[in-house]
């Protein structure tokens, strides 16, 4: 478990370092995720060195944001004031993403024989 934490927080710390040095507008956790994938890909880290902890964290991803979700109670006035913009924009956009992503993938596969069933 100590090694797993060392690897995971190591990647996160490297992500923080990259953000600190370059001022890049990306969350340090995303950079850490890409670093972890690359380290695994290039064999610098073995899958079993991290798998237990990563499986646990990925499986419980939703739980970790409960406190931030509770923080919503501080913003009731903003939501009440802009309820319709929030609701309509979210609904329209989600339907569009669902359908457009699916269409694009289907069209691309048809256009390229290798990907046909």
């Amino acid at each position, binding site marked *: 478990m100590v090694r797993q934490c060392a690897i995971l927080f190591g990647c996160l710390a490297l992500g923080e370092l990259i953000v600190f040095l370059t001022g890049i507008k990306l969350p340090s956790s995303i950079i850490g995720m890409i670093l972890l994938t690359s380290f695994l*890909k290039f064999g610098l880290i073995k899958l079993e060195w991290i798998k237990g902890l990563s499986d646990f964290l990925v499986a419980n991803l939703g739980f970790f944001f409960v406190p931030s979700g*509770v923080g919503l109670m501080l913003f009731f006035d903003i939501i009440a004031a802009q309820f319709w913009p929030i609701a309509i*924009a979210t609904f329209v956009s989600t339907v569009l993403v669902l359908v457009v992503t*699916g269409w694009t993938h289907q069209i691309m596969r048809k256009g390229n024989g290798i990907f046909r069933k």
Partner: protein
Amino acid sequence: MEYLENKFFLLAITFGIYFVTRELQRRSGWVLLNPILITIALLIIFLKSFDISYETYNEGGYLIEFWLRPAVVALGVPLYLQLELIKKQIVPIVVSQLIGCMVGIVSVVIVAKLFDASPEVICSLAPKSVTTPIAMEVSKATGGIPSLTAAVVVVVGLFGAICGFKVLQIGRVGSPIAQGLSMGTATHAVGTSAAMEISSKYGAYASLGLTLNGVLTAIFTPIVLRLMGVI
């Protein structure tokens, strides 16, 4: 009554409510019984009823939130496991992800602007399609309200789990791979778990969509928001 403000008590009920609702959802299979949504709702009701401030709650809650960022890093493992799958269909997957990501950000900004939403609300809505830890980080980085983003993300996920496949059917998206990808791209982890219930193949493509759109949204949201003059 002062005991109710004890941070270990507040942590215990957070874990407790989540555990009980998750069990209830597993047994009933009822999607509206989403443990994330129910835990947040019950905690807010509890805190408001006993007049406990969010700051007090967060003294313990911070310890849970702390694990958000390590958890996003941990998503690197499923991404690594899916690298082979990605390579095989790299062109259709990457193109549909890129277009899906752009449609997600641009459409929500346009509609929110049409309805006169404030810039901080628009920034909070822009990353709504991706999994919460990423969406909240993006929201924070662009000047949105991470908690508002978290709530919208849950609503999007619930919509996907309940109506996602219906929408895909009506929209004539029939191929299983395209359906799985769309669910993950548009409605993140909650949609992915709904896809996982149909088959593990659906689920694998959904988690691919969730991961790729997570990365793309993190990269492109700040750029698109700047180009569209929001920030």
